[in-house]
């Protein structure tokens, strides 16, 4: 691929990328969030038809404007979200043979089941995986689903296989299995494997060449034995556009909240120890898939606990569900704003009172309509939510204003501990600044804040202390004033 460029409304995602992969090798592609890794691979897979530049295979220029063309040229991509690519209620065999069932049936109208199962079995055997081809895809584990997708990729002759962060949801043994498969493909079947990962140790374990992307450009390409973890991190970061953070000085008080040895029932997070003091903004950093969102939900009681205790003001408390968490004075602004944070079909005023409706009801639990609306008007003004009136449906607000609503609904509940999970996701710069100011005000009022983000500048900009997560555990605690992006990223990527 030479001189690849692509733009989306408002962003130039790739600015002239040259990228070359040989068959029979495992090639790593690495970069910080938003560097353009996934975009580049999607171009290769024919997802976008408006890229500029040239793609050559065996020296011949080819067009990759549709997924069909990409498949024809022997390129297959396995996306991170395996569930979007599988049909849950079809069997393993049908899922593996899906491309052939769809594209290569020709004039035949009937499916030959024996043939399909035999072919699927042959592919699974070739890559050394034991899954019953009659099993339904929905009953498989995450790792098995990924294997099925890889098997699908191999149902036809493939020259290149792209794996977009395949190890994020996998356990150690499952990861080993995947690596064995990748090596087998590269060395015994002469496939070029492109491996996207955030995890540095994995890259050193399995890849031969690493290409580092930053801000839509290739900044370096090295053999892995010529480079070390620290150098990669430095290349990923480079110099960045600096944002300003309205961090105010707040006196930090006594310990407000403590987590001791918390492990969730499904092992979404393990052995978590945390302390939050009054007036303190505590960051939780880590890459996508490290378990940050799971941690915030576990603290809020939305994920059941297996063991461990939570302490509020020194006393052990029970938080079995979000309803109890709210009663204890917790507030969560969740990551998936539209799915979990706001009620898009409801007007602004209902959203702003949803978490603290008791404040607006009389003893017979009738809602005091005027009080509720006046409160909504005050909130709209103090948070400068841009909406024609409090009756507007939240669905029609912009992302930043929706987020303000999601934050605003907690401000009247008089919570003591606020958990923000990626609050700036999909929010424009102006609104971002306002959200930071709001968080600063909460801290100044003596509240405890847990700020979860994979944006390192934000973590550095507004927190006092930061926990770094990697692979479902907290691996490091850092004083924000004494650390830098490189150090956080180093620990986030599993560096030791």
């Amino acid at each position, binding site marked *: 691929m030479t001189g690849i460029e692509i733009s989306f409304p408002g962003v130039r995602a790739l600015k002239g990328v040259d990228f070359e992969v040989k068959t029979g090798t495992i090639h790593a592609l690495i970069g910080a969030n938003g560097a353009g890794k996934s975009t580049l691979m999607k171009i290769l897979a024919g997802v976008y038809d408006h890229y500029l530049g040239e793609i050559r295979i065996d020296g011949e220029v080819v067009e990759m404007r549709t997924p069909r063309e990409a498949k024809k040229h022997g390129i297959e991509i396995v996306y991170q979200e395996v569930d979007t690519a599988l049909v849950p209620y079809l069997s393993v065999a049908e899922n593996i043979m899906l491309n052939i069932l769809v594209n290569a049936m020709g004039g035949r109208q009937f499916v030959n089941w024996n043939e399909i199962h035999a072919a699927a079995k042959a592919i699974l055997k070739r890559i050394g995986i034991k899954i019953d081809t009659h099993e339904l895809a929905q009953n498989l584990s995450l790792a098995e689903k990924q294997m099925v997708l890889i098997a699908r990729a191999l149902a036809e002759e493939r020259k290149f296989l792209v794996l977009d962060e395949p190890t994020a949801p996998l356990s150690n043994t499952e990861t080993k299995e995947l690596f064995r498969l990748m090596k087998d493909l590269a060395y015994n079947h002469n496939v070029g494997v492109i491996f996207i990962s955030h995890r540095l140790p994995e890259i050193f374990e399995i890849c031969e060449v690493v290409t580092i992307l930053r801000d839509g450009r290739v900044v370096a390409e090295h053999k892995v034995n010529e480079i070390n973890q620290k150098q990669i991190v430095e290349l990923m970061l480079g110099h960045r556009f600096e944002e300003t953070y309205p961090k105010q000085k707040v006196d930090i008080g006594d310990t407000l909240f403590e987590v001791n040895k918390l492990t969730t029932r499904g092992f979404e997070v393990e052995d978590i120890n945390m302390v939050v003091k009054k007036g303190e903004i505590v960051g939780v950093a880590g890459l996508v898939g490290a378990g940050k969102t799971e941690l915030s939900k576990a603290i809020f009681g939305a994920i059941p606990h297996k063991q461990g205790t939570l302490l509020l003001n020194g006393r052990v408390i029970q938080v079995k569900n979000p*309803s109890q968490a709210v009663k204890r004075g917790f507030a969560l602004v969740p990551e998936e704003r539209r799915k979990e944070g706001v009620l898009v079909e409801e007007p602004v005023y209902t959203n702003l009172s*949803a978490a603290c*409706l008791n404040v607006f009801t009389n003893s017979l639990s009738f809602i005091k309509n005027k009080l509720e609306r006046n409160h909504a008007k005050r909130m709209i003004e103090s948070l400068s939510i841009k909406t024609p009136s409090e009756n507007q449906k939240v669905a029609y607000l912009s992302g930043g204003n929706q987020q303000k609503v999601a934050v605003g609904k907690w401000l009247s509940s008089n919570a003591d501990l606020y958990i923000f999970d990626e609050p700036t996701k999909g929010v424009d710069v102006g609104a971002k600044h306002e959200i930071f100011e709001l968080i600063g005000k909460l801290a100044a009022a003596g509240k405890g804040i847990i700020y979860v983000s994979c944006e390192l500048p934000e973590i550095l900009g507004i927190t006092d202390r930061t926990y770094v997560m990697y692979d479902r555990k907290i691996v490091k605690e850092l004083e924000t004033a004494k650390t830098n992006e490189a150090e956080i990223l180093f620990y986030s990527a599993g560096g030791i």
Partner: protein
Amino acid sequence: MQETNLDQPKAANIWPLIGNFLVKWGTYLTIVVLVIFFTIMTYDKSFDMYPFIKTSNVIQILRSISIVTVIAIGITISLTINGLDLSVGSVASLADSLIISAFVWYEFGLLPAIVFALFGAVLVGLANAFLIVKLRIPDLLATLSMLFIIEGVAMTYTGGGSISEGMPNLDGTQTVGRLVPVFKELGLAPWIIIIMLVVVLVAHIFLNYTKHGRYLYVVGGNIEAARLSGIPVDKYRTLAYILAAFMSGLGGIMLAAKVGSSQINAGAGYLMPAVAAAYIGFSVGGSGKPNAIGTLTGAILMGVLDNGLVMMSVPYYSINIFKGAVLAIALATTYFKKK
């Protein structure tokens, strides 16, 4: 030339307004059109009167829809949490059998009999909630199973037959119990209509002006957001199914009062009209949500249709053709815009 140029943007602006108006008030408009249509069509030349809009006929229509409306309110409440209770007809049958048996077999007084019947209904609501909230069976399937189970329970309870005053017990001995006279009154106008209006009013206030009603809508709107707002989601879903069963039980009691005896599976026929009324009600006044007043309007629409078609001497076996067609038109006004 100039005139047409000026007119075109105007016309383009007016159509969405009209469409909006139709979506909001289409149901009322349909009712008005139907009333005018039936009034004219049933004009009696020999007496020079319009029998369709005579007070007695209006009362007849309201009386005929009262049971459907109350059951439909039950469905409406189950719809607020984004569920659909299909067992309402069977629950009405059960309550119908329970209350008549309480009078005839056990010689209960009015209040104990009503409490007995409603208690039975609420138990079914709890069972529904258990299947849906605890066992996580999808609402349609859970209440569908319950539809069959309760139909069977009600028939088994009555020994597969009807219950009426003066009939022998299942073991052949004579019964002495009688329906309380006040109870029979409840099945007549104005009481049965008053009960319906009170139920609609209470449901309307409950859903729109109390915390609990608000929570029901929030749970239905986005269950995950509701949960993460600290609303005890399971509690409110359980409440919704209990209230739905309670309303169906009340409908069954009204049915018993109206008929004066308990017939096999008497409530089953009310399920689909009640579902239709609740769904028609979504669009009324532009609320876009299940709501009590809308449900009443939906029931009135169907009552007017039923009554008018009978008065026009459309054969009973053909009436459903027209009912279905008008239902489709009414729903088209609701969903047409949502493309």
